[in-house]
Structures are given as C-alpha cells and as structure tokens.
C-alpha cells in the first residue's frame, strides 16, 4: 500500500500513559509528526521527556500494564499500526521497522553466537535457509565494518568491544533492509572516537539504502550533523518542531533556546554557561499551564494558568508557547546581531 503524500510514517496525537501508584504518568501526551521516505528525524529531550516512550509506542513495545497507548494513530506506510493484530505487528517489527538501542550488551543474547543472532533475522522474516542466512550474516558484518568478519562471526557478544557490539546491532537491524530505522541513543554508551565511527556508518547506510531514520538522543551536537528535522520534547509534549537548521538558527521556544545556550561549544570561547534553573518536571505531577513555566525566564501569569497553544511560527516550524512568535522574533534579531 502506498501513500499519496510521500510520508512513510505519520504519528497523530499519540498518547501513552502509565498507571503507577503515584498517579497517571502521561509519558507521551499528544504528539504528532511526519517522516518522509529517506528523511532523518531527530527527537531530543532530557530524561523523562518521553522520547524513548514515543519510539517504543511506534513499534508497540510498551509494557502493558502499566503502560497503555490511550489514543492516537501511527500510520506506517498507509496502515495504522495501532489497529494491527499482534501477529501483523510482528511482521513489521524487525522486518520493516528496525531498532538500535543504547546498550548493545543488553540487546544481544549473551549465550548465542553473533552469526546465529544475525541469521535469525533473515530466517524468520525472509525465510532464508541456514546456509544463505549465514552468508548474508557475514555480508552484513562486513557492511558495518567488522574486520575479519568471517572468522569473528562465531564469537559471542562478550568477545566484542562496545563499539563492535553496536556495529553488530546495526548489522542485525539492517539485515532485512528496513524502511525505517529507529536509533535510540545509539552512541551514548560509546567513546567519542567510536561515536564518530558509528554516526558515520549510519550516514553511509542511509545514503546507500535510502532508509528513513529516527534518531533519539539527548545530545544536540549529534542531531546537528545527522538530521533533517528535529523535535524537542519536554514532559511528554512536543515543545518545538522544525527543520534542523531552522531550529538551531531561530528557536521559537524558551526551553529550546535555553537548551541550546547551555551546551558548551567546543569551537568557540564562551563566558559563563547559560543555565536553565530548576529541575526537570515530575511527569506524574505536572503543574497546570505550561509544564516548563516554573523554569522559564519568559513566563508570565498566563503561562502558569493556561496550557500553551502549539503555534505555527512559519509553515514548517511549530512551538508550544504562549509567546512563540515573540521568542521567534527575538531569535531572529539576535541572529542578525551575530551575523554583523
């Protein structure tokens, strides 16, 4: 089934709640976005912002109970994933939508040879016989740059370094040539030189296969160089959404602005670092009004009382803020000053 508007994935008003003792945690609360074929979308946020729950919702891996997708649509290639049977979802998961997680050690089976784990993918989803699956596994390991792939294929995960394990994870994820790759903090556990290798690899693979990618991370540096579009999440909501360059250049939300200013730039001399005051919110007990209001410099009475609107500042650029336009204008002004 193909889609008229070219979107591979469309998430509409997704809400995923967790029923916990201390109350209902609205981990993801009404988020919407689209992803076109071949595009890379970044989802940025701090811990508890809902970025990983969004990802798990898309592939329907929310542990239930306590979690539940309360409402929304997840249209993947024209079909709503939330309406599919578990058997149908399983055909998509791993085959058409693949995932890479932060910690490759916990995502690989420690008792199984690497080759075997890779073979499972193609045997299960593509019906390869074992010799074909084995050859394919070696090929995949070579693609992701495992040196001496043939002799290392029969090793166990613990015999690989962290960076190599992440490569194996990527090889597994790509085994069935998925249309969508979701990478949840794929380089957070890795050293910086290894991170550079893995990011380079994801870029190359994207160019070769045209896979769409959702990259979830807390690192603004990583998304800057990797993504076309960006979503900034806070307290389960989309706070800002825009093309990556636009979002970095003219942020229209005080949270995004604060976040950008609080990251040290390794290339530029800086004075005191801007700091967002206060603590990330307790999602089980959100204040009325804007969830960021208690930490926001720009906040006024209305922010503490009324939930903010999702303002369209330009055609492709949205911000959840009572003063979105003003913040956008001031970013534009600051930009002009900087470029003088």
């Amino acid at each position, binding site marked *: 089934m193909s889609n008229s508007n070219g979107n591979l994935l469309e998430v509409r008003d997704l809400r995923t709640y967790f029923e916990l003792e201390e109350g209902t945690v609205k981990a993801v609360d009404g988020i919407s976005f689209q992803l076109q074929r071949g595009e890379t979308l970044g989802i940025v946020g*701090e*811990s508890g912002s809902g970025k990983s729950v969004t990802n798990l919702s898309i592939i329907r891996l929310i542990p239930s109970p306590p979690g539940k997708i309360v409402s929304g649509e997840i249209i993947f290639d024209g079909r709503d994933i939330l309406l599919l049977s578990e058997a149908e979802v399983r055909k998509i998961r791993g085959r058409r939508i693949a995932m890479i997680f932060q910690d490759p050690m916990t995502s690989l089976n420690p008792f199984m040879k690497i080759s075997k784990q890779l073979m499972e993918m193609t045997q299960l989803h593509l019906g390869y016989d074992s010799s074909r699956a084995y050859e394919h596994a070696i090929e995949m390991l070579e693609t992701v740059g495992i*040196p001496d792939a043939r002799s290392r294929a029969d090793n166990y995960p613990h015999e690989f*370094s962290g*960076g*190599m394990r992440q490569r194996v994870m990527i090889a597994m994820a790509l085994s069935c040539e998925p249309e969508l790759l979701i990478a949840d903090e794929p380089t957070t556990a890795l*050293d*910086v*030189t*290894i*991170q*550079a*290798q893995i*990011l*380079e690899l994801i870029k190359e693979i994207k160019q070769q296969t045209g896979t769409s990618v959702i990259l979830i991370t*807390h*690192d*603004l*540096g*990583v998304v*800057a*160089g990797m993504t076309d579009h960006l979503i900034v999440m806070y307290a389960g909501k989309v706070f800002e959404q825009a093309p*990556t*360059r636009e979002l*970095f*250049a003219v942020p229209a939300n005080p949270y995004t602005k*604060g*976040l*950008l200013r*609080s*990251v*040290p*730039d*390794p*290339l530029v*001399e*800086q004075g*005191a*670092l*801007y*700091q*967002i*005051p206060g*603590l*990330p919110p307790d999602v089980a007990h959100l204040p009325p009004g804007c969830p960021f209001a208690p930490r926001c410099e720009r906040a006024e009475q209305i922010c503490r009382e009324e939930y903010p609107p999702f303002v369209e500042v330009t055609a492709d650029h949205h911000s959840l803020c009572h003063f979105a336009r003003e913040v956008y204008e001031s970013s534009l002004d600051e930009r002009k000053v900087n470029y003088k």
Partner: protein
Amino acid sequence: MSTQPANSYNGSMAQPIPGRDGQPLIAIRDLKVHFNLGGGTAWDKLIGGSPVKRVVKAVDGVTLTIARGETLGLVGESGCGKSTLGRAILRLTEPTSGQVFYHDRDLAHLSGRELREQRRHLQIIFQDPYASLNPRMTVGQIVGEPLETFHLARGEAAERRVQELLEIVGLSRRFIKRYPHEFSGGQRQRIGIARALAVDPDFIVADEPISALDVSIQAQIMNLLERLQREKNLTYLFISHDLRAIRHVSDRVAVMYLGKLVEVADATTIYREPLMPYTKALISAVPVPDPEVEARRQRIVLEGDVPSPINPPPGCRFHTRCPFVVQACKEVVPQLVEIKPNHWAACIRISPEQPDIENVPPGDTPGLRS
C-alpha cells in the same frame, strides 16, 4: 623550554614537566599504577593459566603539575587511566611508583596518619551521585561527617556549618534531615560537592562530575563548580570524557591515552591547534551543536578500537590506530616534548622545528633528531 622554579622537591628532577610557571600546588612525577592480573608463573603454566604475566598499566609514568587556582582538565576515552590517575593522586588507589607532591610532602609515600591529615586539603567528587552517598544517612550526617572526622566542628556549630554548606551549593537548609533517595541526580551531586567542601579543601578531584546528569543540569553543576573555585580559590583536576565540558571548565587540558599523557596545553590552544594525531582525531570527533558547522566539518574517523590496556602496544601506544604511523612509532616510546611554548605533545613525527604533522615529509621523524 620553561623549567620549574627551584622547589624543595624538583632539584632532582632532570626533565622539565608540563605545567604552568610558578609554584605548583600539585606536582606529579613519573607516577605509575600497575594492576597485576597474575599469570606467567610455573603454577599458571601447570593449571593452564596465562603463560605470560599480565599487567594492566593503568597509569604508566605520568609527570604533570597543577598550579594553584587552575582547573586542569584530564580527558581521555574509557580505560585510558584518567580516573585511576585521579584516585592515585589522592591515594585512594595505591601508586606502584612515582611521587605526588602537595606542598613539600610526597603524598605517595606518607604514612597512614600523615596521609589522613593531608586528606583534609584534598577532596574528591564522584561520577555517580546515586552510588556515592550512603542511603541510610541524612543529608546532614553526610555533609557533617567530614567535620567530625577532622574534629572541625561538633554539635550546634556543626549543624550551622552544614546548613551554610547546603546554601553554598544551592540547596535549601530545610533538606538537612532528608535522605539521598529524596533527591534528583543534580541535587545529589550538589550534596556530594557540599561534603567535599566541608573541610575547606585546597584541591578537588572531580571525577566525571556531570556525566550522569541531564544536559540542563550539567550546566548548573559546571557553573556551581566555577563559582566555588572563584570564591574559595580552589584547584581542580576535572576528569571527563566529555570534550565539550572539558573545554568549558578547564584552563589547561591534559589528554591521556592508554595510561600515558599524549598532549598538554592551554584549553584554547589544544582545541584550536591540537598537535598529536590522537588529540586531533579526538577533537574532530566532538559533535558541534551547530548544523552549519557540522555540514562543513571534516571529521577524522579513526580506525578500530582502543587496544587492551593489558600488555598495550609497544612504542607509541596509539600507533595501531594512527593515520601517520611509521615503522619507528612501533619501536620508540615517545616522550612529552614542549613543541611550542607551554604546549607539550608526545609524538616522534613532530618537533619544535616541525610542529605541524601534516607538513612533515612522509616517513620523517623529526622528533627523533632533537
């Protein structure tokens, strides 16, 4: 080359050491921390163990000074020995050999009692704010414990001091009766900092103090550490794998690779013109939070992984991944040389006359001539 001023301890130091001019607060001399993993004995051969002796050279001959009031950033990838070095300076890990001078005393060779006296001036902040605070103690007890240990205050005076410390690190004095689990990661890190400050130290080893925290909280803790440094004239060894944080907080930066220092220079200089190939790759690998810059940037992507610190490669330890490697690199252990004023690097393929490795003729090793 700058030499150190005459101190009671460096009369015997033959070689100059990378550091700022002036009286250093901490002077580390050829410090080694080796961990013996066994192997190599007749018994090992008998039971089928490792036929060779296996030693992790976590820190292998580090010489460095830290000036009063400065922040020295120590950066490197996991397993490079940076935390072990930090701990060995405070003797939380026993050094195998070498010296650590604090004022005129060699911390590495003090007796237990003498060491305990000095510890008052030397404190540490740990990475994991969840693991480094005793969950059964109240905040008041945690922050107040060092006051008791060093007989600095007791009773009401101690309580007042604890309240004052909490306020200094930006926590409410009402928190004094609460337990660590009631706090967020950033707040716990503040408690850890308050505990370190309780004894009015001179020198603090901050071992990955922000790595476990959220981005917005990292900035808070970095700013707090900077403010405290100004107010109390503290000296920091700031250990981190986060090159952006290191750049921001440090006056000088020391880069470590597999137990050895490979480059030491001012923070601005080392990020602008790194000399040693590993430092070059490391700095080019840092993602910059600016899409325009990222689009133009040329990244040096290193091949392969950091080798095991058990029996590391001979010669230059970086030679297995270095794009500029020549045969001599596999044989000669490079020394830290002052290539430019106050800019030290360990690489035989560069020299003070030819500091730019890109312009050194292929195969040439100017560092071996001087």
